[in-house]
């Protein structure tokens, strides 16, 4: 049975319309994984000697144990945002003689083989071997390593429990932030010292190998809980929930001020507000806006002036990146309608452009308080905002004409919690790194003000040639019209 499931997925991947694109992304992810593997391997090999050097009197194993709490917390948050439960289209299987139990076990089992679970091994195993070489008792070290691996799996399954609960809420990432932040704070202010509790626990397991049963039991409980959750979702009616909320129709008359693009603006605003997936990109805006607070209060970053522009582009452009990268896939469900209707493609695209440009302006204005950390930050943000409006909006619209991946807004596929994973962030890289590279180059060659000016000039050029650029972009969309219709017609 597992073999059949695997072959189904194999076919889904290779026969999908966006195969070329996803292969490219997979290759990129491959390199990224290699990078992380190298990092972890380095950590695993270097940890013992480094700890010995920094704390000559301490036992490296005990020190590692006392830091495990932070690793668990960090891993949990990281996974929440980047690891998604494997998606499988189960509807066709429901009426076939396949036991539901098997489907669920397969999906959960597959998740255990996630890259996120292998990564820690690259640190754990070398460190464990170092310990054994340094004459630590072999059995105890092996059990300690086993306990760590079990904890990795606990995090894996615990994360899916959190995701399955938070995916139904609008502010899906709020619970994890609150829980992780709360635990960290309790620990930080010494109210409850979790890192000691966790550390003591691992010390106990190391000293008394039989205690490894405790984490294994926790793992079993997590697995069973996940199993129950997923089994419930394996019925059609959980996808076709009868609970239909009454709709608040709003007329959005004010969009009329935008002239002939008003109908599309209304449609886009409704699109954003009425679909879970798009709505979450609105909440991301809050994160983007506060992003600067991670950096600017720290004195180290005060001197990294070339870095300001990165935060500027990110915090003023977060909506642009999040929303823009899926143009026109947001409309993929009814793309045929748009193509056969009496519409001007240019108006359709202009509405998206206006939305993104306005979002940049609003985010810039909301970010003005950053001036508290220095006027240079404001200047860099201003330059970044102009660059976003003049260059990045056009780039992302142009990129959209290569978009061949359908988005199913109704999201009825079981196991599909948020629909976006690490891949979503990759697309932001050229949009962020290019201006940062340019800025850094001019910053080191000439100076801060000139570097800002360069970005502003580029942005202004983009704005001046807006009409011309839009004509070219529209033509690109028209050229790939048939391909897009065809791709958006396919399910995967």
């Amino acid at each position, binding site marked *: 049975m597992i073999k059949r499931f695997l072959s189904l997925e194999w076919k889904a991947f290779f026969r999908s319309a966006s195969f070329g694109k996803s292969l490219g992304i997979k290759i990129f992810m491959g390199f990224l994984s290699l990078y992380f593997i190298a990092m972890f391997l380095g950590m695993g090999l270097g940890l013992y000697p480094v700890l010995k050097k920094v704390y000559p009197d301490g036992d490296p194993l005990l020190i590692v144990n006392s830091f495990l709490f932070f690793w668990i917390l960090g891993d949990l948050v990281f996974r929440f945002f980047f690891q998604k439960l494997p998606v499988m289209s189960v509807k066709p299987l429901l009426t076939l003689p396949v036991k539901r139990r098997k489907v669920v076990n397969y999906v959960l089992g597959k998740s255990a083989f996630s890259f996120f679970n292998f990564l820690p091994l690259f640190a754990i195993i070398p460190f464990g071997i170092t310990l054994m070489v340094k004459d630590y008792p072999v059995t105890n070290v092996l059990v300690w390593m086993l306990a760590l691996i079990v904890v990795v799996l606990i995090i894996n399954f615990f994360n899916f429990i959190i995701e399955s609960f938070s995916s139904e809420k609008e502010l899906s990432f709020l619970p994890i932030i609150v829980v992780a932040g709360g635990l960290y704070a309790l620990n930080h202010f010494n109210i409850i010292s979790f890192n000691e509790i966790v550390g003591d626990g691992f010390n106990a397991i190391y000293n008394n190998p039989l205690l490894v049963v405790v984490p294994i039991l926790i793992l079993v409980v997590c697995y069973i809980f996940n199993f129950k959750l997923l089994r419930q979702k394996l019925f059609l009616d959980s996808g076709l929930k009868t609970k239909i909320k009454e709709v608040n*129709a709003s007329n959005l008359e004010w969009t009329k001020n935008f002239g002939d693009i008003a109908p599309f603006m*209304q449609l886009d605003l409704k699109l954003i507000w009425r679909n879970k997936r798009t709505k979450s990109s609105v909440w991301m805006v809050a994160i983007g806006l506060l992003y600067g607070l991670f950096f600017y209060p720290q004195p180290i970053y005060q001197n990294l002036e070339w870095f300001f522009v990165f935060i500027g582009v990110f915090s003023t452009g977060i909506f642009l990146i999040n929303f823009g990268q899926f143009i026109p896939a947001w409309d993929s469900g*009814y793309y*045929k309608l748009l193509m056969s209707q*009496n519409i001007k493609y240019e108006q359709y695209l202009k509405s998206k452009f206006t939305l993104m440009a306005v979002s940049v302006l609003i985010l810039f204005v909301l970010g003005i308080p950053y001036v508290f950390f220095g006027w240079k930050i404001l200047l860099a943000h201003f330059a970044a905002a102009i660059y976003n409006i003049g260059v990045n909006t056009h780039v992302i619209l142009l990129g959209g004409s290569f978009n061949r991946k359908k988005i199913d807004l109704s999201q009825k596929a079981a196991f599909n919690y948020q629909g976006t994973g690490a891949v979503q962030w990759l697309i932001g890289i050229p949009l962020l790194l290019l201006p940062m590279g340019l800025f850094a180059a001019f910053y080191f060659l000439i100076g801060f003000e000139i570097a800002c000016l360069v970005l502003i000039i580029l942005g202004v050029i983009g704005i001046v040639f807006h009409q011309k650029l839009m004509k070219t972009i529209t033509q690109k969309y028209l050229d790939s019209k048939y391909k897009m219709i065809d791709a958006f017609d396919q399910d995967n």
Partner: protein
Amino acid sequence: MITTSNLSKKYSGNQVLNIETLEIPKGQSFGLVGNNGAGKTTYFSLLLDLIQPTTGHINSHGVQVNESEDWKPFTSAFIDESFLIGYLTPEEYFYFIGELRGQNKADVDSLVSQFEDFFHGEILGQKKYLRDLSKGNQKKAGIVAALIGNPEVIILDEPFANLDPTTQIRLKNIIKELAEKQGVTVLISSHDLMHVTDVCERIVVLEKGEVVKDLATSAATLKELEAHFAN
């Protein structure tokens, strides 16, 4: 007048449509029948420029559809659910289509109100999104949306499928009324021979992408079609 000449469509060497010549005069109610894979939806998709013809072209009221977009103002269609916007309420959807076709809200309201019977109280004022309606109700909304803005060419793919018997009968009346109107060309495809002979003046049978019969509807047409498909 819709003129089709030398039209063919191939998918990787496989011919799915090949129509040498087909003329549909303005104002005709035109029915397209054929088994699965006969090329009905392909023909409609070509007519709406959703796919590219391999050879030949379709000319609609003097506009070659794959060259110019000027056919769009006078053409409307409902092919399948992908013509609906799931996160709008039916009213909002009608207004959106109306706006694209140069109709204000009052125009749309007065047109839609004629179809209250057809909607059977399940579409308007329900405060539900289209995606939450049943398949049949979605279809009703889609068909009516295709009538907004006084189109001269109306294309409906399988309009009778998925509808309950009452609605099927009401839909037949709507189509008959449209056909009586001067200058409105209605193109319908259907698997239901009875319905299609009821509402269409002319019926074309497609088989493996080719026109095999072209009949002006008469009392004998239904028998003839049944005999054709029985073999």
